[in-house]
């Protein structure tokens, strides 16, 4: 059931918290700038700047959160905006601004808190890396950009920070750029998200053209507010959609790229080439969640035109894509052998859950899973990092084993994360957030299939996580050397995150739906009324059953044994062909290689041919014409002008020579000439006198 959003009251004058909100992203970005100027050996200083700036942002976020909570407790639904004009062009203006409301407050706290823990963790993880300073510079820049996405009140500002986030993701995935696979993975991430961003930009432009503003909330004039939405609904677009639906789908395309939904998910597993803290922060907790956050932000647009209890085309598409992604990625995760890759596919799958939750249940459902997922996925990644560190940079799970005795703290926290992800009933946060999604799926008006898909996905989640934990921590050690526990600077953040992985569930239970009501601005009440609904118990039973089945199958297949890397997996021996398909990631990359990339290569070659032959030919023919003209000129000059000139001179010389022959130097010759001249003169005289 989709919640009806209650109109927020916007205050006349923004409070201090809202006024200072811009500092939250600005300070980490400033820190990044400072760190970029530091020298490589200044490690302590760069780490201090980074952690200090994010700590400051955390404090400010908590302050803002407190402000919003106090407002909420007094019954005021707080949404404060600070907008300013950036570019004025004639009558129209491009405005930017930031917003402080429950959604942004929650997200701010989550991002800064998890980010801070990961920053502290990184000082330990990257201690042996020589590019320590550069790492923290990029991390700070990323944190600033992500926080910019969160507080943005303008779709344009959001897009700018969105791109900046993509850039820092590229820089961090390709952090070890000397490795060709890392450079390729960074490029792949950038290009794949670019595909989504093209559609995103189209949506932005369309929205601006249609409504004249890109601000979300602006005292009634914003694009997410009533008047603009009514205008958008009135406009029909193609395929039976209204403008609202079409723009919503375009924006979802951008979110799908960033959050790794089904056709554009291919970059996320490859992004594991980056250092593990990067995977934890960016590709588990925050950046990939940006897509989900974006959909939550533009939810009024996605929901516009929906009848009571019904869905819109845009939201239906979101749901189906999310559900498909959830199952698809979970299937592939079953057959992977790299510890981070399993977690990557798990992230893709959980993002699909979040999208499905948004589509079916509304902002609160999707966001709750986002928040809980951030904590336990970051925990799992950091735990994986700890394991990799302890196993001397080994990442193949078939070469691990028996670590529960060698790395007890890592095992304990990892186990908590795994149970949270799998949805251990009642105690762990993942259960409550996933349950919220399943409940929404159960009551979805359009179809029941997503519910079954998501339930199946939950089963698979439990199964592959059990498989992973069995391989890594149970059984006996199959690697080289001796595994050792990680230092305290790495394990303390794990503990803190584990605590939250358990406790966060409390704020979203049906008994006390604090989270949901906080987001929607309603009052929250502690009521046991929902416990009486039988549908609820059926749901809980289904979730528990799914979890138990997955866990037990996993334990039975993998619990006791520890197969070596050379031996095939249990499932592989049972069903080799399906295993092969899943192991090869269902050939999506290969499909792209054959279609899109081959097309690009062909287009590139065609363009090159065109450039060289047509344009190059035109230029060459001009040059050739000039050369021909010059050659003709030279020919004419040499043979015509010079020739005629030389000929003339020769003639003159010859005639001069001939004339000189008159001067024989002999007297008799002169005499003859004289006599001849006299004769001629006489004749002329006589004739003229006669005539």
């Amino acid at each position, binding site marked *: 059931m989709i919640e009806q959003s209650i109109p927020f009251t916007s205050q006349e004058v923004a409070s201090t918290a809202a006024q200072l909100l811009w500092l939250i992203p600005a300070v980490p970005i400033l820190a990044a700038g400072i760190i970029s100027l530091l020298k490589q050996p200044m490690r302590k200083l760069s780490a201090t700047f980074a952690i200090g700036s994010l700590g400051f942002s955390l404090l400010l976020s908590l302050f803002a959160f407190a402000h919003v909570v106090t407002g909420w407790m007094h019954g005021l639904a707080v949404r404060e905006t600070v907008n300013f004009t950036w570019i004025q062009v004639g009558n129209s203006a491009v405005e930017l601004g930031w917003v402080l409301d429950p959604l942004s407050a929650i997200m701010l706290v989550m991002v800064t808190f998890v980010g801070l823990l990961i920053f502290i963790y990184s000082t330990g993880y990257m201690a042996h890396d020589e590019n320590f300073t550069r790492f923290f510079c990029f991390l700070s820049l990323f944190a600033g950009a992500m926080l910019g996405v969160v507080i943005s009140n303008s779709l344009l500002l959001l897009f700018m920070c969105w791109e900046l986030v993509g850039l820092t993701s590229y820089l961090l995935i390709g952090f070890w750029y000397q490795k060709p696979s890392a450079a390729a993975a960074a490029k792949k991430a950038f290009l794949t998200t670019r595909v989504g961003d093209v559609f995103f930009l189209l949506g932005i432009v369309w929205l601006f053209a249609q409504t004249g503003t890109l601000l979300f909330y602006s005292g009634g004039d914003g694009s997410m507010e009533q008047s603009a939405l009514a205008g958008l609904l009135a406009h029909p677009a193609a395929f039976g959609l209204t403008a609202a639906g079409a723009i919503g789908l375009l924006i979802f395309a951008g979110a799908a790229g960033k959050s790794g939904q089904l056709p554009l998910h291919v970059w996320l597993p490859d992004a594991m080439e980056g250092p593990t803290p990067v995977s934890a922060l960016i590709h588990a907790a925050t950046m990939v969640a940006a897509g989900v956050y974006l959909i939550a932000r533009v939810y009024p647009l996605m929901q516009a035109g929906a009848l009571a209890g019904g869905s819109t085309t845009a939201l239906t598409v979101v749901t189906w894509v999310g559900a498909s992604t959830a199952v698809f990625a979970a299937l592939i995760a079953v057959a992977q052998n790299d510890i981070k890759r399993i977690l990557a596919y798990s992230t893709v799958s959980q993002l699909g859950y979040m999208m499905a939750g948004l589509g079916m249940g509304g902002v609160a459902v999707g966001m709750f899973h986002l928040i809980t997922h951030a904590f336990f996925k970051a925990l799992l990644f950091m735990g994986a990092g700890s394991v990799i560190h302890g196993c001397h940079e080994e990442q193949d799970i078939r070469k691990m084993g028996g670590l529960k005795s060698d790395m007890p703290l890592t095992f304990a926290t990892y186990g908590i994360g795994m149970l949270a992800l799998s949805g251990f009933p009642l105690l762990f946060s993942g259960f409550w957030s996933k349950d919220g999604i399943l409940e929404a799926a159960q009551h979805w008006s359009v179809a029941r299939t997503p519910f079954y898909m998501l339930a199946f996905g939950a089963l698979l989640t439990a199964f592959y996580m059990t498989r992973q934990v069995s391989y890594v921590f149970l059984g006996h050690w199959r690697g080289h050397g001796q595994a050792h526990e990680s230092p305290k600077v790495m394990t303390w953040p794990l503990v803190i995150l584990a605590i939250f992985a358990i406790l966060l569930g409390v704020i979203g239970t049906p008994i006390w739906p604090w989270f949901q009501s906080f987001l929607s601005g309603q009052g929250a009440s502690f009521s046991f009324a929902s416990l009486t609904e039988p549908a609820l118990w059926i749901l809980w039973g289904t979730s528990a059953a799914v979890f138990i089945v997955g866990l037990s199958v996993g334990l039975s297949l993998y619990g006791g044994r520890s197969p070596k890397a050379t031996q095939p997996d249990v499932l592989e021996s049972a069903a080799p062909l399906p295993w092969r398909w899943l192991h090869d990631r269902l050939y999506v990359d290969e499909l792209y290689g054959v279609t899109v990339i081959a097309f690009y290569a062909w287009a590139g070659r065609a363009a090159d041919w065109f450039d060289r032959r047509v344009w190059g030919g035109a230029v060459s023919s001009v040059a050739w014409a000039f050369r021909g003209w010059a050659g003709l000129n030279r020919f004419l000059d040499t043979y015509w002008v010079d020739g005629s000139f030389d000929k003339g001179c020769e003639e003159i010389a010859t005639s001069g020579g001939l004339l*000189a*022959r*008159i*001067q*024989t*130097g*002999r*007297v*008799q010759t002169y*005499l*003859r000439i004289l*006599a001849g001249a006299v004769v001629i003169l006489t004749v002329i005289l006589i004739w003229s006198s006669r005539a």
Partner: protein
Amino acid sequence: MTPLTGYLMVAALLFSIGLAGALTRRNAILVLIGIELMLNAANLNLIAFWRYGPHPEALTGMMFAIFSIAVAAAEAAVGLGLVIQIHRHAHTTDLDQMNRMKG
């Protein structure tokens, strides 16, 4: 043919012969001989015109002829002196070989 015409024809003939000799002979002295012939022919012309002209008592023609004879003599002397001097230098009187002034 009047007598005058006869004399004139003879004079013309002698003149032409002298001219031919002056133009064709190799020896420089022969050229001078030709010139003497031409001068004589001219004298004959003068005398013939004096005799058959309107005023023979004016003696114009005869005077002219006498002066012509005197000048011819002087010219012959100088010319032959030149020929002798040339012969001393070039050791020949062959006019065909005297082309130092050629262009």
